């Protein structure tokens, strides 16, 4: 190397390697654009997501034109608006669920790994019980049971069910990862030094252990994001997730099934959006894993 070598912190190094990965950059730019479109959905759309444009079009659904870029659905609602507002709902749900999962998983994992002994045994048994069951299946069963017990849930409650069903089932992966990493780190000299210097347990966990776990946690969060986006879309497809009038990509796909022969755009638009988004998150996750892999450090 001709330039003088500067030693970088692990996260700075990871960031540098991430920027050199073209797939990660494209995926990252797409996700930033999507996030902007979702947050600014009311600025970028001409119609409200629940506005029924029946005056202009006698026959709904109607194909794309200059007024409705992606056409209208069977109820005369603008597909473009529903796509952007649907992104807002999907990404919002995903954000909340992933935060719930991360909070439960990280705190249980840190605690179990650092304390060891009985605490560890008890918490990990609990994790094993939850881990023994596939996430999406448990989420489907839980939401199915909740849904079957009540006619029409108010909108906020249907979102609450979704957060519960997805958040409650998703944390064991994170708990296991954080526990394993904590077990390895707690024997390091700097932790022992902190303990010897009388640093309280809470500060050891939050200020000494947690920052050193950020790499693996970021990678795990990315994987969780992809899983939750898929799970939310699937639950909404089965009518177990987001309820009308809120739009959801999964529900848009379901609604398009009846008109799929004559109005293929109703199926293609949300399908492509969903598949590309999940793919972008997956590619970014793979790139992050490589970027944080200490064996690949320069």
């Amino acid at each position, binding site marked *: 190397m001709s330039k003088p070598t500067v030693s970088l912190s692990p996260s700075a190094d990871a960031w540098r390697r991430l920027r050199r990965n073209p797939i990660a950059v494209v995926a990252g730019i797409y996700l930033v654009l999507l996030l902007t479109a979702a947050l600014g959905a009311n600025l970028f759309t001409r119609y409200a997501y629940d506005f029924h444009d029946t005056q202009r079009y006698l026959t709904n659904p109607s194909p794309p034109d200059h007024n409705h870029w992606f056409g209208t659905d069977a109820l005369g609602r603008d597909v473009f608006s529903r796509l952007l507002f649907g992104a807002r709902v999907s990404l919002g749900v995903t954000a909340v669920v992933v935060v719930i999962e991360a909070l439960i998983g990280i705190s249980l994992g840190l605690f179990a790994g650092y304390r060891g002994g009985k605490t560890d045994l008890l918490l990990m048994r609990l994790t*094993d*019980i939850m881990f*023994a*069951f*596939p996430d*999406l*299946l*448990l989420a*489907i*069963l*839980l939401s*199915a*049971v*909740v*849904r*079957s*017990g*009540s*006619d029409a*849930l108010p909108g906020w409650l249907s979102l609450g069910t979704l957060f519960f069903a997805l958040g409650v089932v998703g944390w064991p992966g994170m708990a296991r990862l954080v526990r394993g990493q904590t077990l390895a780190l707690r024997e390091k000299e700097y932790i022992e030094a902190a303990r010897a210097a009388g640093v309280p347990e809470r500060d050891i966990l939050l200020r000494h252990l947690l920052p050193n776990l950020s790499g693996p946690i970021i990678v795990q969060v990315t994987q969780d994001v*992809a899983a939750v986006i*898929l799970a939310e*879309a*699937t639950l909404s*497809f*089965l*009518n*177990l997730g987001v309820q009308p009038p809120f739009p959801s990509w*999964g529900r848009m*796909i*379901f609604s*398009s*099934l009846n008109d*799929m*022969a004559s109005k*293929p755009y109703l*199926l293609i638009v949300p*399908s492509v959006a*969903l*598949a590309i988004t*999940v*793919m972008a998150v*997956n*590619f970014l996750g*793979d790139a992050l894993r490589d970027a944080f892999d200490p064996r690949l450090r320069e």
Partner: protein
Amino acid sequence: MLAFIVKRVLLAIPSLLAISFLVFLVARLAPSGPVEIIAGDKATPAIVAQLKHEYGLDKPVFVQYVNYVVGIATHGDLGKSFQRGGQPITEMLRNDFPVTAQLAWQALLFAIIVGIPTGILAALFHNSWFDRLAMLAVVALVSVPSIVLGPLLIMVLALHLRWLPIDGWSSPMHTLLPTVTLGARSAAMLARFMRSSLLDVLRQDYIRTAIAKGYSRGRAVWKHGLKNALLPVLTVMGTVFGALLSGSFVVETIFRVPGIGFESINSISKRDYPVIQGMALLVAVLYIVINIAIDVLYGVIDPRIRSQESPK
């Protein structure tokens, strides 16, 4: 060996109880009961009370749960439907379950036939164009959910090309699209896992020794490599099976396949929660039993597992 099986079964009991209790409790937490729905608006409180008594809903929740579990344990009674004139749930399961089992079985077969050879070839020709193409396909298939893949397959193969029927379950031709839709993701998972497992094995000393002793590379892989590489793949079969079970709800809904997934989703809008509960329990038991079977099989094949303290 027997001790290993017994231990594995005992370990599954807490999981089963936890899931059945969760499913049971969540149903009872719902804002208004199903009895009011059956009875209708004009029912007198006396009729509602009578119905509640008939379904055992007037007792405390915990007593209801114990009765439910005891009913299942003693004579396999899952209760009866709130709709359909009180048809017993075990009878409904007998009709619907074979359909779901056939779908899951075919999808598993599809996943194995496509996934395993792809993974093996990708590992043998590591970093070749085939390897790269296969891994790109894997990421794509893992990212495209069945709610996207299924409708797209219908649109292209059934509506435009008219090669296959759109939905239903009346002939082998009808099972083709649901099978592929359900199995695609699992095929991708198996291919990826098979590839990394075989790559690990190929780096082992015993493969190098076999080649040094005069085996061709192909023969060394065939005689020593594959058996060892397939072993870890067996462990992901549990995950694959879980994906197939949850996927069957979606795929049966897309293609109107009359299995337990389709029936459960239909029962939701009818608020027929004993049905959901029974189906949920069946699916949970099935998943756990299959996973025990896989663990036991793993113990049979690999004696090191049996002797370990905790079989996980």
